[in-house]
């Protein structure tokens, strides 16, 4: 990991220092050496064993005498078939085409391990350090005031889409500004990391801009109760009143009814009172008060517009909730609370 003088750079550090690889964390050897963490990856890359050796900077001949029986047998057969008796040759000077296959397999394998690593305790910690240092850039949206973003994939399957940036301030995803990131596979970051990061580090003040030092809400004296697992101040700080773009013509707001009028403001909207969003609590609170107000709900919502009162919204939510009062989407595997 340390690239200090003398020691040759490891495959992992040199991979991470390539242009366009700035978002990658350096996966620890410890993580890679734990077979459990690699479950299922054997079938996903060609020449898996060689690729793994390359990532770990293992000299191929060394492990010849060592463990891993089943793997070994398989390799031997294919190896012998290709190279005949030249075992030495196979290890010491792999054919160039083999090498490039192994190299690209190693990159794929590293990416897939990386997807898992950054969701592990050590990995997400390392990513938080990169986040603090502003390695992932900032949100391009004007009203997000240069909030730091997080690299994410829109798919966990490699080859489908490139890496994107998730902004915790507007909860939207953006194309990285520099084209060098447009060749980096999004699956190497995966769909889970961005959201898991927010749940793992609820204390970060998400409204801080990338130019400022990252700071925690605790330090700013914020000790409010959480809503739905997040501090209210961190629920989409870039959205809501005064954070929605209002188109105007010579100072006059463009009407919603105009053909070219605003239609997307809901996307950047947020209730003034975030307690409205605490569906579980509101449901419990309102559960006894029976449904005598149900009929005029629709009217109520329409008339009060975007900042309808808590009560009116709650009754809508109550209907939405159906039989599931808690709606704890995230607690399925306890990922939120355990870290």
């Amino acid at each position: 990991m340390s690239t200090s003088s003398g020691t040759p750079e490891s495959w992992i550090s040199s991979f991470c220092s390539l242009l366009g690889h700035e978002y990658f964390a350096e996966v620890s050897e410890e993580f890679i050496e734990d077979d459990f963490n690699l479950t299922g990856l054997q079938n996903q890359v060609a020449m898996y064993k060689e690729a793994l050796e390359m990532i770990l900077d293992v000299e191929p001949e060394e492990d010849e005498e060592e463990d891993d029986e089943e793997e070994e047998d398989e390799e031997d057969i294919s190896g012998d078939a290709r190279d005949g008796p030249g075992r030495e040759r196979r290890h010491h000077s792999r054919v160039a085409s083999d090498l490039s296959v192994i190299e690209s397999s190693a990159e794929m394998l590293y990416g897939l391990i990386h997807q898992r690593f950054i969701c592990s305790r050590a990995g997400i910690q390392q990513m938080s350090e990169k986040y603090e240092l502003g390695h992932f850039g900032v949100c391009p949206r004007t009203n997000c005031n240069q909030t730091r973003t997080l690299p994410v994939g829109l798919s966990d399957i490699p080859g489908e889409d490139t890496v994107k940036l998730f902004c915790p301030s507007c909860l939207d995803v953006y194309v990285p500004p520099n084209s060098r990131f447009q060749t980096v596979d999004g699956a190497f970051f995966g769909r889970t990391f961005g959201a898991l990061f927010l749940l793992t580090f609820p204390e970060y003040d998400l409204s801080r801009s990338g130019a400022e030092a990252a700071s925690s809400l605790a330090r700013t004296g914020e000790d409010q109760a959480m809503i739905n697992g997040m501090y209210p101040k961190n629920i989409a700080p870039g959205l809501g009143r005064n954070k929605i773009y209002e188109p105007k013509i010579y100072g006059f707001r463009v009407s919603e009814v105009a053909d070219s009028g605003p239609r997307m403001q809901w996307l950047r909207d947020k209730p003034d009172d975030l307690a409205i969003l605490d569906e579980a609590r509101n449901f419990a609170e309102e559960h006894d008060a029976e449904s005598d107000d149900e009929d005029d709900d629709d009217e109520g919502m329409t008339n009060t517009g975007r900042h309808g009162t808590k009560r009116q919204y709650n009754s809508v939510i109550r209907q939405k909730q159906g039989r599931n009062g808690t709606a704890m989407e995230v607690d399925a595997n306890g990922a939120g609370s355990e870290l």
Partner: protein
Amino acid sequence: MDDYGTESDSDYTSYWRDWFISSRGNEYFCEIDEEYLTDRFNLTGLNTEVQYYQYAMDLITDVFDLDCDDEMRETIEKSARHLYGLVHARYIASTRGLTKMLEKYKKADFGKCPRVMCNSHPLLPLGLSDIPNLKPVKLYCARCEDTYNPKSSRHASIDGAYFGTSFHSILFQVYPTLVPAKSQERYVPRVYGFKVHAAAALVRWQNSVRGDMRRRLRKMEVDSGFKDGEDDLEDEDEDEEEIDEEEELQMQLQQHQLVEYRGGATAATGALVPVAAGDAQMGGVA
């Protein structure tokens, strides 16, 4: 200023303006007609905004012939650029100016929306203020109706007042057929396939706000411009939402599939795999 003045002044039409709009960093500007520039009505009030107004105007219209030192020349040059910007803000709201900016918009000269769900929709420059020296230029996306910072620092320092607050709204008012279809597609943060509660609750609230808007528009018989999500209107809220967790997850998957497909992925079928994200739990979180 670059190599202005070192070339021969053979091409007398719009020599200075040609140079100006083709200078690096000035890609957002279009060329203002001679005709517009010489109509004093269009310039009302600008003479007090700009130092050495007449010299600056002479420079812009290529009739500048004052013999002066370099320092003076530089001051006038600076004034000319400022004056050009101020006239530009007015010009692009005129019929001719709109046409020129429209051409640039169609070529995506102003860049493309960075928002993934906007599918690289071309942007338009805008100012957040009409008063000069207050706010740098921003970019407006007509698809998500939001504003973004220019990618390049050489654009980030241009005065937003040179484009003005009204231009893009006027453009779409004049050319309503160019208003892009609106979409409800959006990013939904997930952890191992499950939505994050705080974000999901906000999304539900936003959906109700959107549903209200669409009902309001329908009542007034105005086209909402959405090409998707007819259920926003056809069903009452409760019908739409009275679905159990499992179905909700299915719907997410479909949405997700759509997102990936639009993101340029070839294999949309792969999107149905995420339930197998169980694999990915090996990360050692549990």
